[in-house]
């Protein structure tokens, strides 16, 4: 099942309390690595620790946050990571998407409006497995895969102010 982006756009934005907004903004920047990190954030923001913990739990339960925890740099874990694209004719798109999504190594897959219309992230436990996976995808789908590994990283900082 693919959730279409149009369908996602219909989901109303969450209604957030002032405290939740402050916390979402602060917690995207990273927790201090100290013994009682939630208490440390609470003190910074003039809240109490229980408010911080309860708010994170509520935001996770409501799906406003998809995750709260360490963000790993996949490349530094010794595994392989790449972005790859394919050019799939419309009538064949669903079939190929199902085949590509069937690979555990495919972490994200997006349809995008371009001649190259399928874009996915491959994450593998070893660097060598990237090439193998790409070859396997080409073989099972019958279409070429354009591998676009990062050559330089200039910035990664996902931050959505609310």
């Amino acid at each position, binding site marked *: 099942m693919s959730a279409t982006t149009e369908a*996602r756009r219909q989901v109303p934005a969450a209604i957030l309390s002032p405290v939740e907004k402050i916390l*979402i903004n602060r917690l995207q920047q990273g927790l201090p690595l100290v013994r009682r990190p939630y208490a440390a954030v609470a003190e910074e923001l003039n809240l109490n620790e229980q408010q911080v913990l309860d708010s994170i739990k509520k935001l996770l339960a409501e799906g406003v*946050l998809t995750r709260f925890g360490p963000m790993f*740099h996949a490349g530094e874990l010794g595994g392989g990571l790449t972005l790859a694209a394919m050019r799939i004719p419309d009538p064949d798109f669903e079939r190929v998407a199902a085949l590509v999504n069937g690979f555990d190594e495919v972490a994200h897959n997006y*349809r995008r*409006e371009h001649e190259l219309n399928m874009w996915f992230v491959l994450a593998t436990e070893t660097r060598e497995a990237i090439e193998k996976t790409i070859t396997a995808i080409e073989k099972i789908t019958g279409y070429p895969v354009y591998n676009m*590994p990062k050559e330089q990283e200039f*910035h990664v900082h996902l931050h959505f102010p609310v």
Partner: protein
Amino acid sequence: MSTSTSPSETSITELDRKLILATQAGLPLVSDPWAELGRQLNLSAEHVLARFQALQEAGVIRRVAAVPDHYRLGYRYNGMTVWDVNDDRITELGTAVGELPFVSHCYRRPRHLPYWSFNLFAMVHGTTREAVEDKASQIRAVLGDACQQHTILYSSAILKKTGLRLRR
């Protein structure tokens, strides 16, 4: 369980792997999450915290943070802006684009001529399509005459989103 890992080492060890497995779904939401992880892994809270600090210092962990569903925050449009930038200026200009506060990811990637001539990728998000286009025009201004062409690829469907996971 026995482990000889010292908290100051920065290469990925068997202990790190256990810490990653124990936290890839999330950090425990309790007052002292390090003590909670320590209980699960038979380590002291100090040891767990020191290892997290070392991993963050080494860049294995970027940070311990909240990941919002950007749609729920009202950011409904994600645009992958892609740019054909002169190779001899890409380091300087990629750095400048990466410093724009609204650019969430910025990478240099290889071209695949003739289908793909873009070598700089900058991801931007907006509450409207116009907001994404306005941000792209600010990137255009930074790149100036070193950029031959660009386009914006909007996502029209999320086909899969499971995130990065180690296998157990």
